[in-house]
């Protein structure tokens, strides 16, 4: 696994070279974009290598562990990074923060390698800090007022969450009574274990937008420039999904009480996200709230994973989480970049997009349909593999999830309708080829992956 490790270091190096290039006067040249591409490409190759090995890969004496699930998550993150780079290309050169955008993308990916594979408290804290700080900064990069405000909110609440992480680490350690590098193990004392669970949910749930730790999310996802948000929502989130699945599933394997609490939180999260999104006519806000709802579906799968550990349904649920995460990234990343380019108003700039730019319109409707879970798109399989195992844990949870999926159709279909319905007055912006290409590539990938999803399952 030396090669993968080296490739990950190349990603780090590419990230670090870019500020140096700026210092040397090459900050506004195409070279920074190319270096960023190199970092992203090497990370992509690393994740493919990791995925191609069937065994579990350990790094740093087991402090970081990558299995097929996390490898798939890393690959999904790399693809999202590629998509963002294609779309943005040289656009970020003009930002006041330049060339931070190009440097932070490989840096976030580098942090993600440790975050997704973190197998000890020390790696969790270290990678958490690295990825978090990078993503706070990322949100502010475009320099406009909304982005800066969003970044400030994100930083402040993120700092609070970091305190909670410290509490979580302490609580975990108090129980175990040993060092920072102690592997995370199932707890023996109930009350203490639940303190740990609550703190974990408060800290990691914060990053994902799990209700009731989601307060920041709509104001950040919904208001800042869509391009950095594509990174935060499409890449960073994946790392935290991998992390929370690992921590919760390993700490609370077999605990029905923990599963019950997670089920309640999942119900609250999906319902909150879907209902809040119901009537908004702002596509970026819609995507922000629907992100909350999707996290609700994803963590609902955790109930099965911990209630019936190592069972076939648990494996199916894990596959569901992976596929749903990829479906989510594959749709959210291009849609957030599209919003930045084409506008966010479903009754305004986006209305009647079909008549003006049918390629983008059809592609974006495919992505929305995938988020809704229409077969045979990848989003359908994600929901299917999450919902199917739910039946073995709780029919009520399954019904709530299905009803929620039904509720979500209201806003997805309305968005879809507005995109295809001709507008009375045209107030569109011209969508550049790069942005269009990203949406089209994602839509094609959504269809192809949807068609081969049953095969992907076997990889996990």
């Amino acid at each position, binding site marked *: 696994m030396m090669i993968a490790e080296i490739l990950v270091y190349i990603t780090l190096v590419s990230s670090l070279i870019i500020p140096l290039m700026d210092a040397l006067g090459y900050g506004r040249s195409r070279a920074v974009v190319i270096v960023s591409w190199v970092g992203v490409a090497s990370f992509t190759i690393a994740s493919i290598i990791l995925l191609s090995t069937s065994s579990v890969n350990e790094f740093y004496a087991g402090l970081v562990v990558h299995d097929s699930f996390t490898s798939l998550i890393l690959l999904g993150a790399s693809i999202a990074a590629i998509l963002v780079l294609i779309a943005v290309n040289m656009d970020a050169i003009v930002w006041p923060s330049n060339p931070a955008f190009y440097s932070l993308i490989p840096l976030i990916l580098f942090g993600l390698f440790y975050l997704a594979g973190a197998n000890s408290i020390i790696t969790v804290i270290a990678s958490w800090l690295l990825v978090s700080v990078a993503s706070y900064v990322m949100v502010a990069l475009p320099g406009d007022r909304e982005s800066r405000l969003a970044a400030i909110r994100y930083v402040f609440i993120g700092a609070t969450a970091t305190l909670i992480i410290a509490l979580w680490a302490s609580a975990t350690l108090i129980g175990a009574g040993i060092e920072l590098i102690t592997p995370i193990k199932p707890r023996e004392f109930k009350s203490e274990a639940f303190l740990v669970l609550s703190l974990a949910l408060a800290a990691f749930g914060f990053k994902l937008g799990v209700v009731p*730790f989601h307060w920041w999310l709509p104001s950040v996802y919904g208001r800042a420039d869509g391009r950095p948000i594509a990174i935060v929502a499409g890449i960073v989130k994946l790392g935290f999904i991998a992390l929370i699945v690992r921590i919760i599933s390993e700490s609370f394997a077999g605990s029905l009480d923990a599963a019950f609490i997670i089920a309640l939180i999942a119900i609250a999260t999906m319902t909150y996200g879907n209902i809040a999104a*119901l*009537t908004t006519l702002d596509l970026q*806000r819609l995507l922000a709230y629907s992100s909350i709802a999707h996290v609700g579906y994803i963590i609902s799968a955790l109930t099965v994973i911990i209630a019936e550990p190592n069972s076939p349904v648990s494996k199916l649920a894990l596959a569901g989480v992976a596929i749903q995460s990829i479906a989510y990234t594959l749709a959210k990343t291009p849609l957030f970049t599209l919003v930045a380019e084409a506008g966010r108003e479903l009754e305004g700039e986006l209305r009647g997009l079909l008549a003006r730019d049918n390629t983008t319109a059809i592609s974006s409707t495919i992505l929305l349909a995938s988020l809704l879970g229409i077969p045979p798109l990848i989003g359908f399989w994600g929901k299917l593999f999450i919902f199917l195992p739910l039946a073995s844990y709780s029919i009520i949870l399954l019904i709530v999830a299905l009803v929620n999926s039904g509720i979500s159709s209201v806003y997805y279909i309305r968005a879809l309708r507005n995109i295809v319905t001709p507008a009375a007055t045209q107030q569109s912006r011209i969508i550049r080829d790069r942005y269009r290409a990203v949406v089209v590539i994602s839509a094609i990938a959504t269809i192809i992956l949807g068609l081969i999803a049953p095969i992907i399952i076997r990889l996990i």
Partner: protein
Amino acid sequence: MRVMAEYESLFPWIFSWLAPFIGSFIIALGLLARVRDERFYGYTSVFSILVSAIIASYASYKVLSEGRVIYSGGDIIWIPWINVTLGTYFDGLSAIMSLIVSWVSLLIAVYSIKYMEGDWGYGRYFFFFTFFVGSMLLLVLADNFILMFIGWEGTGLCSYALISHWYTDEEDKWVGKPGRYALGFPMFFEPTHSGVRAILFTRVGDLGLLLGIVILYALTGTFNIVELVNKAPEWLEPLASKGILSLLLITLTLGALAKSAQFPFHEWLVTAMTGPTPISALIHAATMVKAGIYLFLRLTPILLSGALLVHGEVSSLVTQELYNYFLVVAVIGALTAFMLASMALVSDEIKLILAYSTASQIGYMFLGAASAGLLVHTLKPEIIAEGLIAGLSHLASHAVFKAALFLVAGWLIHVAHSRFIDPMGGYAKYMRLTALSLWLAGLSLAGLPPLSGFFSKELVIHISSHAAPLLSGLAILTAMLTAAYTIRLVLRVLHLPPYEAGVRHKPGEAPSVMLTPYLVLAIASLAIGLSWPIASNIYMRAAELTLALGVGYEASVSLSTLTLIVVSAITATIATVYIVYYVIKLNFSELIAKNRLSRVIYDFLYDRWLINPAIYAIFKNGGLRVANTALDIDESIDYTYHKLTPSIGSIIANYIRGVHRGRTDYYITLYIVSAVLIILLALIAIR
């Protein structure tokens, strides 16, 4: 008794019911070919019915004289998987019934040729008329329930079509006084409305009949009525031991009660008078309404002789269940007889009076036959025969005199240009033969000796006096009411001056083609009465040869105290009516106008005991209410989907999004509070 079947060939017996069907088919072809000559339709109909009548007469002759049952086509399978045959079954009961149906139909068909002359629906009239006769004969002669049910529904269909014959609904074709309302419901009906009523009312009973047939099939594996006799103990025992025998039989009999216009289904018959008068005579007096009582007469011996075959502990259960069933039917019969007779007292429409009388007299028939069932514990086959003969003989007498009465009524309506009796009066001196017919048929209905109606009614009262003295008392009271309304009708139409001033019409005798049928029928009712020893002998023979019976009963009427009481009561009633109308000339209109109690009673009877408004209030308004409630529910669902849910969703969504206004301090506070709450909740939950 066990019935052994020996099959005869299909022909010619099948033509006893098939001939009218062929006739109606030819008429239909004529209609399609737009044949304009009315004679084509009338003669085809008469001829095809004549064929039936001849075959039925020949069959009846063979049955009654040679004493053997004719069972043809019982081995010809029509529907293999449920083993339904094309059997025509002539036993004592069906022989007498087919005679009545075919010959009365023939006479009325002849009458119709003239009566319907020039009618715009002439061909259609004869099509349904002939089809009806075929269906009725099929119903009577079928050896299985499936064929019988086809005939049964065929008669219902024709009845509907003929009640609504004048479907343009002109006011002179209505029944009831235009503009009269009871409890807010109209008491006048157009032909189309009446047709729908008839089909709806009888449909309720038909469903019960169908259900009963299916249940019997499920229990016995056969639709064959003859086989049902042999298997009687097999299905009587399990049903009785489960306590559902009487319930099943009542369900099965619902069809019979509805078809024969017994309470609470009688309303359809009353308004069926919107049809042409020959139809009222044929379908709604002489034949179709007898289908119900015929089915009951068919079932009664099967049930009772079956009960005699049941032994052991179940025997008493079967007896009790049968007793309960027959009690229900007897009470309905007696109640219908009384109620409808009381309505006839005040009615001022000639056909309506006769319609009330029809339902009332059929009530007698049910009472007579059911009385045998009430005596089931005596375990005497002769009692069954007595009940059967009481029902059957009154059915026959009634068919003859009531057909005569309706045909006379048809002529009188034609003369007066009105269906009401107020413009009629003093006709006796203009139409002596018609007057004679009306008197003979009327006195037969009133039950005065020596007319046939007297003997048959006497048999009913006699058997019911043994079985249920209380119901017998009601029957005697009804006999008095019957005599009263009949004599009132006859006196007012024939001998008293018209109530309505300034009536200008020229009464005269009916054309011979119309006169002959009712005169023949009226004389027949006298002749049957005069030759009662012969007639009763035929009925006894018929009983002996009836399926599942096999014994006869001497149906002669002896001069008992009961007979004397009944005859005296009827005679006294006739005399009273004569004195009130002819001698005192009491003005009832004035009495009703001045005396409040009289008016209340009059209105109650005129509005048919308010049963029609009650049925409409319960079923029509109730149904509307159910429909409206369903609509409300549907609209609520619609509202919930299209208005309420989106509104609530919108309010909640806007409220939730309202929280995310960008205040970082709020977010931090909310985050910390949420984290603390979750931790506390988790801890509390665990403790």
